[in-house]
């Protein structure tokens, strides 16, 4: 980070004895720390997200003027009920929720692993979801209605296996990631095996699902995900505070009175749950979980991953990816996962190269 470059002379301001960039907001005996720049970033992201949503609603095979699209969402006109109300808005809702859930999941798992390379699509959660979903499809057990549940079960199952194999008297960050990568590879080959075993139509259907697409997803898929997201809000608030200590080394965190294993399992557990739900809903939309936390942290300049900002970045990325996926080669539609992968893969390479040359990301 080049924070030293644009620094005002040190005499220009007296530094308060509190975390840099934060303000304390106190009410009675209660107090919270608020990061000024994060507030600004959140406001800007909300505007960008609103713009992205309007663009997503108005552009496409039959385009609707932006203002008309907004009016239609607000119920002021029923002229575009089919295009907006039936085709685009439900799908947009799913994209928003999936993006936010994946991004927060990635942020939590990166926090626990203390590694920007860790994310649910790298430590086996997405692969577990895909493997079980494909197996279920092959045996004809998965109608579109129950497929998400198979995928959720698969993602959670994979995470439990990774935990069990990585646990050695505690959850060690590095081992957790390595075991996860191992499982990811193994599960991917299981998926391949069943793809080749299964019949043609099933394989085709499964392949589309596996690249992560919002095509045909609607309120039916959005609802369980929305409830789940709402349910984990308290857990995410807790996580935001726990981040302040688990990002230090193990010994220091324990010395500060943190129950490290409980905290880690809790953080990773919430992350895995969100990732499994999102993957179950839309299939593995690659790289959103990996990219969003790092983009968010660079935007806010905080020492830990800002979770609300991360959720907004994830939602924005996914909405834009879905828009590109629909319009880029229209009328042919790409899965959104292909677009996110096209952005994510170069970033991953850059991260790895940067790590190799000695920088810590």
């Amino acid at each position: 980070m080049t924070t030293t470059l644009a620094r005002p002379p040190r005499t220009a301001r007296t530094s308060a004895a509190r975390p840099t960039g934060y303000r304390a907001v106190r009410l009675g005996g209660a107090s919270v720390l608020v990061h000024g720049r994060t507030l600004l970033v959140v406001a800007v992201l909300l505007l960008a997200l609103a713009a992205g949503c309007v663009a997503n609603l108005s552009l496409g095979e039959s385009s609707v003027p932006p203002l008309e699209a907004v009016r239609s969402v607000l119920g002021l006109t029923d002229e575009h009920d089919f295009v907006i109300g039936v085709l685009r808005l439900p799908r947009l809702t799913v994209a928003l929720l999936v993006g936010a859930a994946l991004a927060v999941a990635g942020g939590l798992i990166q926090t626990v692993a203390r590694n920007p390379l860790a994310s649910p699509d790298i430590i086996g959660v997405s692969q577990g979801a895909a493997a079980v979903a494909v197996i279920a499809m092959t045996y004809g057990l998965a109608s579109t209605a129950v497929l998400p549940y198979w995928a959720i079960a698969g993602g959670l199952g994979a995470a439990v296996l990774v935990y069990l194999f990585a646990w050695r008297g505690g959850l060690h960050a590095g081992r957790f990631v390595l075991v996860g990568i191992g499982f990811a590879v193994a599960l991917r080959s299981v998926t391949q095996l069943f793809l080749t075993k299964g019949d043609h139509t099933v394989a085709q259907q499964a392949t589309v699902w596996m690249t992560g697409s919002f095509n045909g997803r609607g309120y039916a898929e959005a609802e369980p995900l929305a409830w789940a997201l709402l349910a984990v809000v308290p857990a995410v608030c807790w996580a935001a505070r726990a981040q302040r200590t688990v990002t230090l080394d193990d010994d220091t965190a324990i010395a500060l009175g943190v129950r490290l294993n409980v905290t880690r399992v809790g953080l990773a557990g919430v992350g895995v749950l969100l990732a499994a739900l999102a993957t179950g809903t839309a299939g593995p939309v690659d790289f959103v979980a990996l990219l969003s936390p790092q983009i968010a942290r660079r935007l806010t300049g905080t020492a830990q991953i800002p979770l609300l900002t991360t959720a907004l970045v994830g939602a924005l990325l996914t909405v834009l990816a879905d828009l590109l996926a629909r319009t880029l080669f229209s009328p042919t539609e790409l899965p959104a996962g292909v677009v996110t992968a096209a952005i994510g893969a170069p970033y991953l390479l850059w991260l790895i190269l940067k790590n190799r040359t000695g920088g810590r990301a």
Partner: protein
Amino acid sequence: MSILSKPGNEPGGEQGNGPERFSGDGPPAGRLAARGLTLGYDADRPVVDALDLDIPDGEVTVIVGPNACGKSTTLRALGRLLKPRAGTVLLDGAELHTLPTRRIAQSLGLLPQTPVAPEAITVADLVSRGRQPHQRWWQQWSPADEAAVAEAMERTDVSGLADRPVDALSGGQRQRVWIAMALAQQTDLLLLDEPTTYLDIAHQVEVLNLVRQLATPTDETPARTVVTVLHDLNQAARYADHLVAMKDGRIAAQGHPDEIVTAELVGEVFGLAAVVIPDPVTGSPLVVPEAPTPLPGEAR
């Protein structure tokens, strides 16, 4: 600075009654003690074997010994980072492993050997994390937190660095910042695991002076109890009120440095032939190893 005056005249303890002051059996003499402490990573080769240790309150205790003697292992166990295989660590008479870790963190601080800061964290942000055991989710930044962080940064002379990223600091500055974080925790007891490692001699002295100051009461704060592991026997002799020399997981000698640091002890514990003379500055024992063979002039 009065730091280099003889560490013997600290208030709160009559000095010079020798090692028998901390006999190790029976009720603990201070707030922190170990009884029958057996530590190790595998069962049949304990690193520390049935250790009894009493940490005198309000003084600087330094643990020394050759590599792999179990000194850092002992310190880690005193700070509940390592679970004993047998025996126990007592904090205020209660067994350490039965206490909630947060409660422990309110009276016992610990700085590990190589702490790691998150990337891009600023000094003030890192120091403020020392307040963790005093905070609740609805109480994230009280005026007491602010005062404690200000005092900790003042005391370690890092207030001027408050908004600098920790990454960009020199080794000596960084170590002071970590100590500030431990101080912000406002614990009466403080454990420091080799706080001078990787520092040049000037920064070593700076950190050790700070350690001495911590055990010196001021108007606002009473003397802290400091336990630290040091590699350098001469620094240990200079800065300790209570010196614990360990060898092979046992205590070879303990007491005031003036009384226990002798040529025989250095021979017994480190296997080094040496003469012990009074330090020309402080009068504390100074260990000078025997002449090298061959002498530099004779080498060629």
